Structures are given as C-alpha cells and as structure tokens.
C-alpha cells in the first residue's frame, strides 16, 4: 500500500508543480494547497502504514498493546497541516490584495517593483 501511495504522491506533486508554474496566481495557490497535502502524505507514509490500530494506550496499561501505528509522523503531520493552512491563508489574502491593488491575477503583469522600461525583449 505504501507503494501505491507513493505513486499517488507523485501525481499530487506533478499536478501541483504544473499549477504553480501557471500565469494565474490563483492557480499557484491551488498548487500550494496540493503540494502541502503531498508533503504531509510523504511524512505520513515514510513512517509506514498500519491499518486499524491508532496509537492509543488502553485503560490500565502502561503502553500501547500490540502493534499500533507510528505516532511520531502523525504528530509531525498534525503540526504541518496547521502551518500549511496558515501559509495558504496568508497567500490567498496576499493574492487577493494584489488583485485589488494591481487589477490583475497574472504574475507577468505585476511589475510595480521592476517596470518594463529597458526590457527590449
């Protein structure tokens, strides 16, 4: 199953890279969301998959009973999801602000800092 997910992650990364290379920064943001998901899945899969055994300690025991899922990547992914959301929210607002100020969603046309003056090409 890890192998199948590795392929899926490849698809996610490919689509997100394609989106991030787009002219329209809204597509870039879509790519950002997808690549965050891909990254989270990579961490998760690297810790190996265990079906149906959450890392919990039953009442009365000092540790988990039997083979349970790897808790460490889960903790890392939890943090990553929240931070990824923070990044997404900020990027979305930034793009929105850029649109209201510059009147375009196309990154090629956002040239306040480097106006096309001597650009002969």
């Amino acid at each position, binding site marked *: 199953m890890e192998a199948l997910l*590795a392929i899926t992650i490849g698809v*996610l990364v490919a689509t997100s890279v394609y989106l*991030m290379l787009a002219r329209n920064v809204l597509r870039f943001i879509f790519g950002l969301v997808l690549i965050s998901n891909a990254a989270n899945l990579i961490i998760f899969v690297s810790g190996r998959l265990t079906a149906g055994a959450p*890392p919990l300690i039953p009442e009365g025991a000092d540790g988990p009973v039997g083979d349970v899922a790897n808790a460490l990547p889960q903790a890392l992914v939890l943090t990553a999801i929240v931070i990824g959301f923070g990044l997404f929210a900020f990027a979305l607002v930034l793009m*929105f602000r850029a649109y209201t*100020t*510059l009147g375009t969603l196309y990154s090629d046309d956002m040239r306040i800092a480097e106006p096309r003056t001597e650009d002969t090409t």
Partner: protein
Amino acid sequence: MNDTATATQPKGNGLVGLIPVGIALLLFGWFLSLAPAVAEGQSLRLVWDWVPSLGIAMSFLLDGLSLTFALLISGIGALVLLYSNTYLAGHPQFARFALFLTSFMLAMLGLVLADNLIGLFVFWELTTITSYLLIGFGHDTAKGRRSALQALFVTGAGALALLAGFILLGFSMGSFELSEILAQADALKAHEMYLPILILILAGTFTKSAQFPFHFWLPNAMAAPTPVSAFLHSATMVKAGVYLMARMHPGMAGTDVWFWTLTIAGAFTAVFASILALRQTDLKQALAYTTLMALGTLTLFLGQTSGYAMTAFATFLVVHSLYKASLFLVVGCIDHSTGTREADVLGGLGRVMPVTAFAAGLAALSMAGFPPFLGFIGKELKYAGILAIGSEPFLFAAALLLANALMFAIAGIVALRPFWQRTGIALPRKPHEAPWTMLAGPVILAILGALFGVYPDLLQTSLVDPTVKSLLGSIEDSKELKLWAGVNMPLIMSIATVALGITLYLAHKRLRPALGRLVDASPQFDKGWDKFLLGLKRFAAWQTRIIQPGILRRYIFATFATVLVAIGGTMIARQAMPTLPDLSDVTFQNIALVVLISAGAILTALTSSRIAAMAALGVVGIGVAMIFIVFSAPDVAITQLLVETLVVVLVAVALLRLPVLDENGRDHRPLDAILAGAIGLSVTLVLLAVLETPLDLRLTEYFEVTSWPEAFGRNIVNVILVDFRALDTFGEIAVVVIAALSAYALLRTTHPRKDP
C-alpha cells in the same frame, strides 16, 4: 594639476606632513643598519603565527634582494614624502594623501620582505588598493576616476591569477614558505603543475609591472599627483612584479618557457614603450613610457640565468630607481613652478631654476648612460648581459640598443630642453626656483647616481653582490661593476647608442608625426579597454535580462528544474533506483481512495472552471483525510477535514471578488507539464527508495513507553504535541497568529486601487 596652493606662500602641513617622513627615515636607517650583516651573506628571518591551522604564518625574510628593495622603498619614500609635503602644501586633503602614501610604503615593504606566499599576496593587494586610492586622488575629474579604476581592474585581475598560482604552488610543494619552496627548485621545475603555476604567477607580475599587453594602465596612472608617480609608478610599486619574478627566479628560472616568455615580453615591451615615449609631448607621459621600457628591460634580464644578466638586473634596478624618481620629481618641480608640463612650451628655465636644472642634468646623464655615471655602468652591464643570452643574442642586443638610444633621446627631451632651449612662448606662470624640500629628493638621488658611478664598489658590496647571491645562490657569479672595462663589444655598442641617441634627439620633432601614424595604425589597447568594459556591461545587462527577467514563472521554473536535477541527478549518480514495488496488499477500498485523490488533483490542474477547481481541491483534501482515517490517524484526519473545509470556504469567498481563471486565453503549457511530470516521477522514486530502507523506530518507542508513565496521557499523538514537543506546538500557534494578523492587515487596507 592637483596642487591648489600657490608656490608664493608655501605653507607646511604641520605634523601630518612630517610624521610620515620621520617614519620613512627611521625605517631607512634601520634597514641601512642591517645592510652590513646582509652583505656578509646572512639572511634574517622573522616569523609570527598567523593562521596556524592553515599553515599560514606572517614570516619575513631579509636577504640581498629584499634589502635592495627595502632601501629603495624607504629611502625614496622619505624623500618623496618630504617633497609632497611642499608640493601639496595646504591641500585640503593632504592628511588623506599622507595616509595613503605612508600606507602604501608600509605595504610595499611588507611585500618585499614577506616570506609567506599568503602574506605576500595580502601586501600585494594592499599596494594595489593604495595605488588605486592614490591614482584616484584627483577623484573630481572623470579622467582620474577612469585611470584609477583601470589600474585597479588590471592589477586586481592579475592579482587574482597570482593568488590562484600561489595556492597551486603552495599545495604542489607542500609549503607556503617561499624559502622552503625555493630550496627545492628542481622538484618545482619538474612538477607537473609547473606550467600552470608559472602562467598564473606571470599573469600577476606582468599586470603589476605593466608588461605588454597589460602596459596601458601605467601611462594613465600618471593622473596621480607627481610625487605618487615618482614613487609608485616608477621606483617602487610597478617593480613589485619585477621583484616577484626575481624572488621566484631561483625556483623557476632556467626552463625554456621561463626564458622565452620573459625575454620576448621584456624585449618587446622595452622597444615598444621607448618608441611610444618619443612621441609624447607631456614630460610626465614621456617618463611613464620610459618606465615601461625599464620594466621591460628588467623582465628581459630576469629571463636569463647568467651572472652578467643578474648583475645587470641588480645594477639597473638601482640605477633606474635613482634617476627615474629624480626626474619625476624634477618634472613635478617644473609643473609646480610653471604650471605646465608640455615639452614644446617649456624653455629657458635653466637660469631661473638652477638647482633643479642641476639635478635634472645629473639624472639625465645617468639615464642616457654617460660615464662616469652609474647609468653608464648599468648600460655596459646590460650589453654584456644581453650578449650572454643563449639564443639570438644579436637580435635582443639590437632591440636593447634601440631602446637605449631612444631613452638617450628622451633624457635630452625631459632634462635638457626645458632648461636650455629658447621657445619664446609665454609660460602660464612666472617660473621660480623650487623650495629646498622639493629639491632635496631630486638632488640627493641624482648625486647618488653620480657617486655610485665614480665609486661602484660602494654599490657592489652593499647591494649588487647580495642581490645576485639571492638570485643565483652564490656570490661568485656577480660581475664587477667598473667604469672602464677596456675596448670590448659593450663599449662599442655604447658608442653606437650615443650616436643613434643624438640623431634621434635631433630628429624627434620630425619623427613625431610618423610615429603618431604608426601608433594610430596599431591596435589601441586603451580604447580596447573601453570597448572591453562596454562589452562587459552589455554582457551583464544581457545575462541579467535572461536570468532575472522579473517574471515570477521563470524563477519558479528554474527553482523546480534545479530541484529535479538535484534529486534525479543524485539518484542516478548514487544508483539508488528502487526495485519494482510490491502491490499485493492493495485493497479495492484503497484503490478507490487513490483514484479519487489523483482524479481530484488532475481535475484541479486542468479545469478552467473556478468552481470545478475548488470542488476538486476539496475532493483531494477529503481523500487525504480518509487515508489518515484508514491508516490509524484519527486526530490527523479530524484536523485535515477541518482545514480542508476552511480552505474551500476561504477560496469560495475570495472567488466572489476574483475574475475567471483564463481571461487571457487557454492555459496550455506542454513544457511545464513535462517538468511537472518529471518532478512527480522523481518524488515517487525517491519515496519508494526511502521505503526500502529500514525504519528507525527508537523515538516512537520512547514516546510509546513514556507517554503514560511520565506524561499521563493515553493518546500518544496528543501527548507528543502538548507535552514532549509543546514548544513546537507553541511555535505553530505563533505562526498561525502571525499569518492571521498579516492577513488582517492586508485586508484592512484594501481600498479601490488608485494607481495602475
């Protein structure tokens, strides 16, 4: 010129002007006191650890060669500093000037005394920088700035090559101490790196000593105040390259490459420069070109290994420094007194400036090579040395004869005509004799030239013999300095030189137009320099346009392409390709999930509908959450669901105010698709390779066994987040708060746009 003070009210510069003179005199005295010990064949060494971990020490070595240079530097330095105290009297930036010149002198002393390659390089660069500052002392003129920058670029580029050569040399020979490297000369000459080392070091010395084709910066450097020209650009700094070649001579000379490179470059520079010198009407420019000639001659002799050549080198080194510094200072006196340096305007100064005329006459006679001056001995030795050359001695002798005859003519132009010819042209200023502080330098130096000529033994035992010993290892090869060596080939050549020199002097005005045409027809290095700089700027602009087009997509493309090369390249280089994965444990449910996620992702990428993209994003998010549920991560799944919901909501809100996705036409990018596919593939391969390696579970096990006993939590993931790694979680919260605050700030200032 740069002097703003009028000579009628010569003011001193107080202590600022006198302290440097004192420093230079003290140093000169100190070196002089060491001279007897060095003359007896001793060499003094002084070592401080500098960067011991890299084997770099601040070590100094005083032998005959260093001592000759050190005495010239400190002695001429003292006179020049005294001279400039009056020359630039009252100049508002005199303190700066004195600081630059003194720093230069100390750096130059460090250069000729250093025994460590790295130490030598540091001093080498210090002279480059101080020279830049001094040439650019008149920084309010465009010419001054250009000349300074040109000198800095040319010598600085050479210095980089030199540094590379030094490092190569140090690693090849296993030591950065010159004395240790030169002790194993045969090993160095046989080393496979000998040629690269030689080329790199010569690149440094040829630029510093202005050998053809790097000669063009030196005449331009005459933009500096005259004392600077006298000191840096004739007597000392430009000789740093010559010094280094002499220093490396015991270790590197004797090979065919060394011989031909130095001999040809030196001979060509000497002839080429003296022809150009004859063309100049500005006295200082004429002297600048004869300096090139002298540097060429010194290089020519360093190409050889015979005793005559080395004696000629050591003698001519001293001769040239004495008369050339003297003549530069004389030209400075003339300029200071009359306000011009034009050879065709100046005349009849002999009556008004008798002392200057006296010094100029002595120096010029030495330069022209008349007996009984030291210049004569130097010239005889040069001819003897050139005839001792192994191959083509007559060709090189003819070149040297021509150069010497031209020098003879220029000595006349610079030192005789301004004082004795009648021009009848009014001078810009009424001339007057220079004050004693400005006369001390030229007079002392010129008299020394005569004194050493009459008593050559003085120079022989104190400087020439020890220098030859530094170069050849033994004192026996040093030839005797004498005024009368009988009727021999050098004497005949001397007579020919005088005859040709007089002819050239008398004909030089008629020759000038022809020379001008010749020079105009030949390649113009100075103009070539401008073209080179222009080309460099254009190239920089061009590559900036390519690399930094200001287009975000290209930057992202370059970033991802780099990632691809880094990951893919590493995998191929390490041969870390994973084996074919085992897919036997896959259930239908899993396949359904994976297909859902992939389809959502592909739809997001390809659709041009905003609603479809948003929905597809949601599908991917929910799919990922379901994977977390299936594989035992309920907490992660809950968070993921919550976040995905928020993402969709926020995107939806934003879309209300945003235009459609493809208002500028279809989004169809095959090249991007190839790159994206390649990156996706490489990520999959890396992940598969990672999954093949064994998993280190020590941390997980630690959390499992300590979660309840120590932190009293039964949900291990939660315990990690809020207890073991609580600080991380705190940081995470901070990140979200900062993002929220920034987003709020951005939204709050939203207003209808005012500027396009």
